[in-house]
């Protein structure tokens, strides 16, 4: 029914898909599996015409297709339900389903009755009932998802892509969704199902295609594989980066930060962990597993139901990141552009943003000379490459931008630094430099929490690893237990070993 062959995609000079195949039959649920960044979402965007492949062919029912945009893909019978829904929250279910394709009567006015009738028909096919007139914001997440699916079906979609549909559903809602999917399968719809939850894949899917680092690994029948085999296929054997060697931690390094309990949402899991002096503690887990939220909640930048922690034995509570700075905890956020930097400002301004106490003259004024000197010193410590400290941030490469973020914290004697995705979107050389910097910092007695979605990075850098799943820590591993298989198994199933 659907055939993708040898799909390649490059962004700039970086190739992210290296010739991926995917073949989906009518009336099957086909799982697309892979780690974060394996290329699943990119592949689906290519399929939907949102981005164009650099090479390769898309065939639907044997006919070659070229989608210049999303609309053309819809025209060809492809429907996609994104991870983040694209519904308008204040419009009702049927208004959303017919958005931009409203049925009008002969006066050019909305024919609400006809739209409602059609919407009801489609939902009846799915065997779903939901309030058609309420704004979709009032519906449950599962119901919103059904609206999305119904919207796709109202466009006569024969191929339906679901990107992590179960991530935010309760178990009973998942059951309902699966019932709907089975119904659709019976009707001959080809379904591509993206999920990180292996047990779900065993429950609903017929075949599986695994991607890894933008490469096609294999396609197989669900019946022929088990949990361990899938994890192995996802993780694979990979070329190890050259990470700077771990330092031997003092056996009894005292804890700098003890998080006794942290709970993100009421009723959610409660986690605890300790961070020892001079160690790199990795936070591993899938995207959305609560790693970043936990870090932000510690600093008071994200709501938390409960947060109790001790810093060097003293109880602390941070209301805003400024309190954290005063106590010696700093955060290097995951998205540099949105959360880390002021890209329209110069390097000086960006580095000195939280350093003014260092350059104060008469307590109140900025000593411009000292500011410039400290900035250049910090820049050279992390070897930022720029013509002058007055260059605007948006003229620098990603790696240099990240170094500027690091430089900002160097002038403080920080006890704890939280690196959130420290090497995202930067090139290999800059990555190595960031790793060296992190090692240097720990050598100076700073402790580091490193949140990362890149397993090699977690494996190569961490002294210990906390694995997150569904908003909490499911396991903490150290020493020789830090293996990709163990971490992925915890992250995808929450259990140590698949009950084999």
């Amino acid at each position, binding site marked *: 029914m659907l055939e993708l062959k040898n799909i390649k995609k490059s962004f700039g000079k970086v190739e992210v898909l290296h010739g991926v195949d995917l073949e989906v039959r009518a009336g099957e649920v086909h799982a697309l599996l892979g780690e974060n960044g394996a290329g699943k979402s990119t592949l689906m965007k290519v399929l939907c015409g949102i981005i164009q492949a650099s090479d390769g062919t898309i065939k639907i029912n044997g006919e070659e297709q070229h989608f210049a945009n999303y609309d053309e893909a819809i025209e060809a019978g492809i429907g996609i339900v994104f991870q983040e829904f694209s519904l308008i929250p204040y419009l009702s279910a049927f208004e959303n389903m017919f958005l931009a394709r409203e049925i009008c009567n002969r006066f050019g006015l909305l024919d609400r009755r006809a739209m409602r009738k059609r919407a009801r028909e489609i939902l009846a096919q799915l065997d779903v009932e939901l309030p058609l007139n309420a704004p979709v914001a009032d519906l449950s997440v599962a119901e919103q998802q059904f609206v999305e699916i119904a919207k796709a079906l109202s466009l006569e979609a024969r191929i339906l892509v679901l990107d992590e549909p179960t991530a935010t559903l309760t178990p009973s809602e998942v059951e309902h969704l699966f019932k709907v999917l089975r119904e659709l399968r019976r009707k001959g719809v080809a379904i591509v199902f993206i999920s990180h939850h292996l047990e779900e894949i065993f429950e609903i899917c017929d075949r599986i295609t695994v991607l890894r680092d933008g490469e096609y690994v294999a396609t197989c029948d669900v019946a022929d594989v088990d949990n361990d085999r899938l994890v192995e296929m996802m993780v694979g054997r990979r070329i190890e980066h050259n990470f700077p060697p771990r330092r031997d931690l003092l056996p009894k390094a005292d804890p700098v930060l003890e998080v006794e309990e942290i709970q993100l949402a009421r009723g959610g899991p409660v986690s605890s962990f300790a961070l020892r002096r001079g160690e790199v503690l990795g936070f591993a887990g899938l995207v959305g597993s609560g790693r970043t939220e936990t870090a932000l909640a510690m600093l008071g930048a994200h709501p938390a139901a409960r947060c109790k922690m001790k810093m060097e034995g003293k109880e602390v509570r941070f209301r805003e990141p400024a309190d954290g*700075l005063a106590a010696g905890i700093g955060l290097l956020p995951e998205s540099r552009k949105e*959360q880390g930097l002021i890209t329209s400002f110069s390097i000086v301004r960006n580095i000195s943003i939280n350093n003014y106490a260092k350059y104060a003259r008469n307590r109140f004024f900025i000593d411009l000379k000292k500011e410039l000197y400290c900035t250049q010193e910090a820049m050279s410590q992390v070897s930022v490459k720029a013509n002058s400290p007055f260059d605007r941030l948006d003229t620098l490469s990603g790696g240099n931008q990240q170094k500027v973020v690091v430089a900002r914290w160097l002038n403080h004697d920080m006890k704890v630094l939280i690196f959130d995705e420290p090497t995202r979107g930067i090139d290999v050389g800059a990555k190595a430099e960031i790793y060296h910097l992190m090692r240097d910092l720990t050598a100076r007695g700073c402790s580091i929490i490193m949140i990362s979605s890149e397993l090699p990075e977690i494996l190569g850098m961490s002294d210990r690893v906390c694995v997150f799943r569904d908003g909490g820590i499911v396991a903490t591993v150290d020493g020789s237990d830090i293996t990709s298989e163990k971490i992925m198994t915890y992250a995808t199933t929450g259990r140590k070993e698949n009950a084999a």
Partner: protein
Amino acid sequence: MQPDTTATTPVKQTRRPKLQIGQMLRSPLVLPLAGLIVVSLLMGLASENFFSFDNIFNVLRQVSIVGILAVGMTFVILTGGIDLSVGAVMALSGTICAGLVVNMGMPGVVGLAGGVLVGIAFGMFNGAMVAWGRMPAIIVTLATMGIARGLGLIYSGGYPISGLPSWLSWFGIGRIGIVPVPVIFMVLIYACAWVLLQRTPFGRHVYSIGGNETAARLSGVKTQRIKLAIYTISGLTSSLAAIVLTGRLMSGQPNAGVGFELDAIAAVVLGGTSIAGGRGLILGTLIGAVLLGILNNGLNLMGINPYLQDVIKGLIILLAIYIGREWR
């Protein structure tokens, strides 16, 4: 892609770059200054009186009230906010000041202090609502604009309060040498604002909030406190403008300053400050305010119908913003 080597940049003390022509042309002051020169020359051509000392000081004196209001407005707009209440707060502040002196028999100094306190209180209220109430600034200050205006009318019964001691007029029409006092007053306030914005951590934090509030907060800037402070500054400058206004009118006018918030915003934006925040200079605001004043003055000198003047001013502002908008 060439991988970064570990070549380190030596710590060499580069000096702050000297202003070069190219850089000067990229300064946000260039366009406002060019506008000021062009408009002045046009006005000078159209009316021979324009470039006389008397007329220039006259223009600056007329500019002073909106000019002072625009100082607070600059702080607010630099953080990406807006303060619509400045005109009304100024009127209330002046009315209370006059009321304290005339109706309650307080000394003039107490009246002035009372007026300033009213301005500060309103500013703090605005700031608290925006920072901790997490409400949009445009709505908060729209509401307090109505509240301030209404309170002034209630307090005064809708009539001007006159009978102030004559020395108060010094603030409005006095002169030191040949320079009008309000002009000196305005220049002093701009100087303080310049120091605050360019030479203190506080000023840098103001810019950083406008540049990227999330980034500023996550790197440890106390964003809420800064916001409280900038709206308070805006309230303070409103009440300082009220002192000049009261001195000129020699009465507390509850109906004064209608629409002044718009002139103040226009001055800030004409001065090259980005309405989205993060970019702009206080000196630009001064230029913008003077530019507006020259337009008013020149169009008057040319004897143009006042209704038409508003249309012309509006068109010129549109044109200025169009030329100065950011290219993306």
